[in-house]
């Protein structure tokens, strides 16, 4: 007898819920697994907005410009057909969100309003108050709840994905999961699995803007079962994150845009309160180094300058990793009105008022451009991605798909602001449609996978748990996580060099070993969070190795990956046509020949194995280097 086809979706953020919705609408049964109620997923943190070209501001904005901005912003490293399709379909996607009831902010005429976001010239960002991600997620969450009421979707919340189960041909046919309350380990069969487990900022410990669910460990687990990572060295650091022991919180670019000034005391030993330090004893380093842009230099430039002040010049405030972001010289009424959301979050979480004392900030790990490698099928007719192709968003493990921040698809070497809510939603939809077509073409039946394969994997996982709970080592998993975060952000962070990366690799190896010798000090077998965390920690350390090995392999500066030893900058006072500039352009093209390639990382016994793949440049061949002048 034929059983109805079933799909498993791991993750209930924007990516996962969109995928689940499209699979359910295609008439297949869906099981969603999530660490907690899907409504609490990290996607809710996004405040700023989501990009789509509506051209309702009289600026002649165009879809083509959105494509160009995305590709150039990503330093040409993204495969171009998927980017083209994403930008083309963005307005339709937003309209669908609007029909779902998302409360987008309105113009006086009742249309969706648009705002300007970093790195582009036109207003192209729709937003919902100061909580766009939350509103978007709730929109799809409601639709999925409706599918649930119709019996097409079943949710398994409070279950953590541990591993895949494959058949004899290596095709993914199910998963093994752990119940986070009872700690039971169980297997669930499926005809296809979609992984939408989000980002991996937690690899940088508390020096990240990400939520606790963004450990990247689910992706790391399928990596250990043969899936490839791609472009993992590309991590976006947000220059102005508010410090905290638990996490760092994003202070938007608007603070600098509205006149905020970044500075440090000239004497790092200065113990006076910020507002007692006289003007001439302060170093406004951005203004000094970049006289024309001053404090409004782009994100990556700002992050690198702060890095330099703290790490190379030893001028961090009080000798620590922090600098001041100062609004106190501005009119209080003005900033209250213009920067309300920022003031609010700083007051709420820091207990201090930025109107009266400067904020303390530091660059923080924000977004992973890299992730699981996924395929796409080229559409010959329009050089986009072929709609519905079962190749779209397929990983290299047959039957396993990936979407959302855990894939590497759309941002190349750097992501434009407000483009990742778009890629998470779009990729989820595409993955759902791809899987539906994959199922239609599937010949064999699930019953063909012997029960033994599931049982073997369950007992392997139980053994891991047993070893960890019985381990009598000396190490504390939470302390190790701090160490991992410090290591990653200081040695594999904003500025990189090969000697330090080599050292980081061996430190990570060492951390990995220590994470085996833990003592959980937890006797309770119910909701054992120390066990869950330690397993995640071990995978975060492995991910750290993937990121570091990829960073070591790429000897150039591109997007968010910055190795000053290989920097190539445009000659001063020379412009296209000048011999000096043309020589630079040639050097840039040479560099592209060598390095404009996707980094692929594969698991091997001796550590991460690196190789390179060509990038599909069929939409916008790289002719012009990025020029910020």
């Amino acid at each position, binding site marked *: 007898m034929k059983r109805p086809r079933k799909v498993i979706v791991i993750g209930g953020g924007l990516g996962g819920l*969109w995928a689940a919705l*499209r699979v359910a609408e295609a008439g297949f049964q869906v099981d969603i697994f999530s660490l*907690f*109620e899907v*409504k*609490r*997923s*990290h996607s*809710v*943190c996004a405040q700023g907005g989501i990009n789509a070209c509506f051209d309702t501001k009289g600026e002649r904005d165009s879809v083509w410009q959105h494509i160009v901005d995305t590709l150039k912003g990503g330093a040409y490293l993204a495969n171009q057909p998927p980017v083209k399709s994403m930008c083309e379909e963005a307005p*339709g*996607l*937003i*309209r*669908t969100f609007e*029909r*779902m*009831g*998302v*409360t*987008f*902010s*309105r*113009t*006086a*005429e*009742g249309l*969706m309003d648009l705002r300007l976001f970093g790195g582009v010239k036109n207003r192209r960002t729709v937003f919902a*108050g100061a*909580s766009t991600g*939350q*509103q978007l997620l*709730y929109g*799809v969450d*409601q*639709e999925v*709840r*409706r599918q649930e*009421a119709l019996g097409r979707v079943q949710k398994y919340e409070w279950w953590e994905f541990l591993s895949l189960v494959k058949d004899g041909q290596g095709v993914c046919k199910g998963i093994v999961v752990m119940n986070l*309350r009872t700690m039971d380990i169980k297997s669930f069969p499926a005809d296809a699995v979609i992984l939408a487990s989000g980002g991996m900022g937690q690899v940088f410990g508390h020096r990240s803007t990400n*939520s*606790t*669910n963004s450990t990247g460990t689910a992706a790391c687990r399928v990596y250990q079962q043969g899936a490839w990572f791609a472009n993992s060295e590309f991590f976006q650091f947000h220059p102005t994150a508010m410090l*905290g*022991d*638990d*996490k760092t919180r994003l202070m938007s670019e608007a603070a600098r845009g509205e006149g905020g000034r970044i500075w440090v005391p000239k004497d790092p030993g200065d113990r006076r309160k910020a507002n007692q330090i006289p003007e001439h004893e302060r170093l406004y380093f951005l203004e000094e180094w970049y006289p024309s842009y001053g404090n409004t230099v782009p994100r990556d430039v700002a992050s690198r300058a702060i890095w330099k002040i703290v790490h190379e010049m030893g001028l961090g405030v009080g000798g620590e990793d922090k600098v001041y972001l100062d609004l106190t010289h501005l009119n209080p009424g003005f900033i209250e009105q213009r920067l309300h959301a920022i003031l609010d979050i700083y007051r*709420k*979480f*820091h*207990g201090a008022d930025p109107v009266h004392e400067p904020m303390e900030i530091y660059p923080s790990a924000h977004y992973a451009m890299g992730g699981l490698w996924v395929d796409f099928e080229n559409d010959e007719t329009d050089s986009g991605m072929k709609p519905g192709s079962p190749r779209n968003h397929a990983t290299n493990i047959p039957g396993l798909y990936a979407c959302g921040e855990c894939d590497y698809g759309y941002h190349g070497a750097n992501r434009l602001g407000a483009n990742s809510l778009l890629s998470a939603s779009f990729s989820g939809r595409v993955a759902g449609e791809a899987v539906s077509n994959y199922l239609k073409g599937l010949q064999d039946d699930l019953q063909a996978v012997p029960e033994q394969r599931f049982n073997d994997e369950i007992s392997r996982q139980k053994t891991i748990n047993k070893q960890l709970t019985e381990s009598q080592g000396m190490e504390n998993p*939470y*302390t190790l996580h701090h160490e991992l975060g410090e290591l990653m952000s200081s040695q594999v962070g904003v500025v990189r060099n090969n000697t330090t990366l080599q050292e980081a690799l061996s430190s990570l190896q060492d951390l990995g070993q220590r994470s085996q010798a833990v003592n959980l*000090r937890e*006797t*309770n077998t*119910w*909701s054992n*969070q*120390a066990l869950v965390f330690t397993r995640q920690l071990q995978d975060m350390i492995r991910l750290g190795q993937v990121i570091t090995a990829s960073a070591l392999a790429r000897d150039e500066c591109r997007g968010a990956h910055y190795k000053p030893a290989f920097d190539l900058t445009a000659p001063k006072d020379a412009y296209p046509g000048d011999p000096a500039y043309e020589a630079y352009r040639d050097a840039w093209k040479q560099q592209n020949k060598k390095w404009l390639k996707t980094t692929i990382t594969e698991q091997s016994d001796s550590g991460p194995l690196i190789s390179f793949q060509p990038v599909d440049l069929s939409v916008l061949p790289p002719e012009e280097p990025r020029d910020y002048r």
Partner: protein
Amino acid sequence: MMDKTIDLDIRRQDTPYSPPYWQAFSIPYREGHNIVSALMAIREQPITRDGHRVDPVAWEFNCMEEVCGACSMIINGHPRQACSTLIDTLEQPIRLEPLSKFPIVRDLMVDRSRIFSDLKKVRAWIEIDGAWDIHEGAPRISPEAWKENYLYSRCMSCGCCMEACPQYGPEKAFIGPDSLAAVRLMNNHPTGSYHKQQRLHAIMADGGISDCGNAQNCVRVCPKEIPLTTAIGELGRQSTLQLLRDLFGKTQ
């Protein structure tokens, strides 16, 4: 001189089936601690004030920005979010207890799945033909209507309002103020209003709006300042009208 500390008394429970007990902890004082970061310090060194090593305290959190709703608990007697509660604003020893209206999982963790099944009961969604582009968005919405709707759309299902509501509880059928607010939100969307009647009928059933005693506790504790009682007032009037229509056989 004694170093400054942060003192917490935490109500603990090992499993859903075991009895609760209290434990006292002290951690070194640090500026800027909130309840989540304090609990992080305790899980790293779970030693009670009198020096016993115990199992780490279990609790829930994700966003640490007061937007996911995970970290609700009772802090010094008030239901609120742990991540946005700064230690410096609290009287010590700080008393932490799990929400009492939901089944306890362990320590400060509770099972709030009922919140989501109640949202299903009241059909808190908009019926769309499918999640594909129909080359048209929703009808226009005035900035004024948006402003009101937006207030409600920020409900993060945290459970604080239910904790404070005298009518809500494990033994009671009442769906709670958050589900009512969700109905208010869906009914005011231009196409969501097409199915207003179904939602009104859902809240006119047992455990619906008539169970609200108008105690106003809910609106006082909501961390998102959602005007719950305004929504309940509006829905009260609408359900009365609906009742009359039902009696006289008219639709909408």
